[in-house]
């Protein structure tokens, strides 16, 4: 084994371990930040790990209306999330799997997760889940093109058709692509908040049907499937966060600095999300499309600035 193969295998291993073990920390961080801003102590940062372990021991309860499709939702979310985590670079370290066009597979894996969640929600035969499902699919019509136009802009700027090339491209900070890059990241931040059901689009903490999108779709899950649901949501935070964090990280000399920088940046992203959630209120539901259109326009403008 030569040096570079050893290094690559280490990167690979660290990537997989990060994807498997880091995600539950992020919702903990976000909740801690929100609690501190609100003047409370809040739950411990590692709370979600405890919750997952507890749920793994619990018994699942299934309604008689549901079929095998009900279980397919959480399973698909985690499976798709794990597969997608192999495609996205964490920081400047290249992802284990990278090829031209991997961003398309990335986006469609999350599309698969969304479809499975929606279908498993409709399986319960309840109007609450139906409501959440209807809203989820409506908003996804605006977030998908925003994501893809962001990819288009980055592809144009970096000349690479792979996520590892687009996100880890050096010299982004000081080039003609700075302005468009900021627009892309702003648009992607909006997509991030929407896809992860954060305020101002959705409230992850209430359980009133008027205010829910994602929370209401998983209302009937329990036991191990619910553990998969929670884990999948946090995995999505990590993976989509890596998209935003990647272009912002400066390139350093040593690989371990890269990784440390990545962890720091992801933590910082969680703190920022917590602050955003504390500072704003949830939008009225008919204002959410306007918010999403703003994100779409941001990424579209970024592309056209680069095209000109």
């Amino acid at each position, binding site marked *: 084994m030569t040096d570079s193969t050893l290094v690559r295998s280490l990167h690979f291993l660290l990537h997989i371990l990060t994807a498997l073990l880091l995600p539950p920390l992020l919702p903990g961080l976000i909740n801690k930040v929100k609690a501190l801003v609100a003047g409370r102590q809040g739950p411990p940062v590692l709370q979600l790990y405890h919750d997952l372990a507890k749920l793994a021991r619990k018994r*699942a309860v299934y309604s*008689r209306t549901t079929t095998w499709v009900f279980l397919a939702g959480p399973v698909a979310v985690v499976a798709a999330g794990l597969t997608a985590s192999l495609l996205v670079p964490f920081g400047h370290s290249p992802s284990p799997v990278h090829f031209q066009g991997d961003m398309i597979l990335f986006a469609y894996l999350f*599309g698969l997760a969304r*479809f499975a969640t929606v279908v498993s929600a*409709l399986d*319960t035969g309840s109007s609450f889940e139906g409501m959440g499902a209807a809203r989820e*699919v409506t908003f*996804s019509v605006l977030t998908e093109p925003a994501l893809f136009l962001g*990819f288009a802009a980055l592809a144009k700027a970096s000349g690479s058709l792979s996520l590892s090339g687009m996100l880890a491209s050096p010299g982004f900070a000081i080039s003609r692509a700075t302005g468009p890059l900021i627009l892309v990241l702003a648009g992607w931040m909006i997509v991030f908040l929407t896809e992860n059901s954060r305020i101002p689009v959705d409230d992850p903490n209430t359980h009133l049907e008027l205010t829910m999108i994602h929370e209401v779709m998983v209302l009937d899950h329990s036991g*191990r499937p619910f553990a998969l649901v929670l884990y999948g949501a946090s995995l999505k935070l990590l993976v989509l966060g890596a998209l935003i964090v990647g272009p912002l990280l400066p390139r350093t000399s040593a690989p371990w600095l890269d990784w440390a920088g990545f962890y720091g940046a992801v933590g910082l992203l969680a703190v920022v999300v917590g602050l955003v959630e504390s500072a704003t209120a949830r939008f009225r539901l008919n204002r959410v499309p306007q918010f999403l259109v703003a994100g779409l326009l941001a990424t579209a403008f970024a592309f056209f600035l680069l095209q000109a």
Partner: protein
Amino acid sequence: MILFGLALALVTLSGVPGLFMRAGGGRASAWLLGLGALAGLAAAARVLCGGAPPALALLRTPLGTPGFLRLDPIGAFFLVPVLVLPACGAWFGAGYWGDAHESARRLRLLLGVTTGFMALLVAASHALTFLLAWEGMAVTAFFLVAAEDRDPETQRAAWIYLVSTHSGTLCLFAAFGLLSGAGFLFLPVPPGLAASPRGTAVFLLFLAGFGMKAGIFPLHFWLPPAHAAAPSHVSSMMSGVLIKMGILGLVRALCLVPDPPLWWGALLVALGAVSGILGVAFALAQHDLKRLLAYHSIENIGIILLGLGLGTLGKSTGHPELQLLGFAGALLHVLNHSLFKGLLFLGAGSVVQATGSRDLERMGGLARSMPVTAGVFLAGSWAICGLPPLNGFVSEWLIYLAAFRGLAFTHSSWPVLALAALAVIGALAAACFAKVFGVVFLGEPRSPEAAAAVERPRSMRAPMLVLAGACLAIGAVPVAVGPALARAAGAAAGLPAPAGLGALAHFGILTAAALALLAAAGLLWAWARGGAAPRAGLPTWDCGYAAASPRIQYTASSFADGLVSAMRFVLWPQVRWRRVRGLFPAQRAYRSHVPDLVLDRVAEPGLGLAARGLAVLHFFQSGQLPLYLLYILITLVALLVWMVA
């Protein structure tokens, strides 16, 4: 050629034994079509794996050129869905449209004849053969659509179809006539012709003629009524194969031109985007299951056009990879769409037969009573949304790759339109099929008929399973179809040798990703099912609501309402309801319907206006025979005088 001829003979005559048999005619025709399909697939496989294209030439005809049938790679690729789908349809029809129906014999005969004409069409290499096969296919399909001809809605749908297809054929005659300077064989046109006014006219006429058949917006208006009115296995064949013959024509026309101008590709991309987005938007608003599936066909034709447009852009700008990827994506989507749309229509047929209605609002909870049908319908929905690891994703992947290459390496902005359109289409399609699958199969039954539904017999389930298996195979292992696709796409793109499509499109990695995904899902499923024994049989919790009834579920209209009202400037829904007022409101009703934009809001009023305007010409129609003869005499004398003077 023998295999192909055998296939042709078997499929054309597949309905004939049924005319003489008292019972079992359905099975006989299914067997014959199946055997013909196998023979034809063998012939196609031989060509696609590098064999020489078999050809059958006629002696010199009065039109001066030889050339009759030639099964080149493009034709062989299109032959696959042409034969597979009617075979599955006939198998399905054995149970679905049994001898109890008065039109069963006629339907079986016509299904075979239509398939025969289509097989002839894909192999035609002479304009006359092409047009004859085209007309034959169109007319026999008319009789297929009008199978239940006592129903006035079916009659109307069949007439609209006939008028549209003949208008399209008229444009094709004109186009072939204008092109006749290059002979009637399908030979490449001289460079420079495409940019001339004649070339423009030919392109637009071909686009109109083939577009009318394929269902490109705004020439799509015949599709929804015809597909809804026809029996389901006929709809599956029409949607899966008949409209693809329009795409075949476009592909053949495009591959004849060595130097298409840039605006051709741009126009194709624009039409593809419009068809795709509007198709799925209208589909979202439908509550008739088969009309909804018909609009989805329009959307997928839009996606195919996006691929063709990107390929043509690549040809115009001189990027061979873009060309190859675009055409490969379009061709693979033709095959994939025929597979999953055929599957969906067969599933819809099962559901419609089980519940006795096409209305989505009267279904629900069918997954428990019809598990196999639900499973294959889910596979079809999954595939049509383009989600990994099924086949819809692979063809959309190729088109996405082409779009990304286009925007990164050329200076044109059109690839970005294709990209954005594909993204929106994907999201809307996922919304629509989540609605369809959820409302039809999941939840509680919304009507007594849905509660009483039973699973369909094996003869109806088996073809659906075959098609679902094919979808999974192509999606999970795209490397298997890579070489054949490369050969067909290379021929379509006009490239001399296909340059490693598998490597360019990373089919190997897609296969690995699909297998990894399935493995991960399997492991997680096992884990989720493990642990303490689950408790089942309780009612749905949803915030502890105690009196859940099937009527509190989301209906299809309510699910789609967010998107439909967002797009009301394009859909123009007709909504009738009165506001709910007061603390104890009386009973209220809500009705919504989205008529087709082109047919019901433009074509019918327009034609009505034209008919009233032309009624002034009634003056000339006196009914007097001598007067008509006088008209003929006047014309004759006028012509003589003009000729002499």
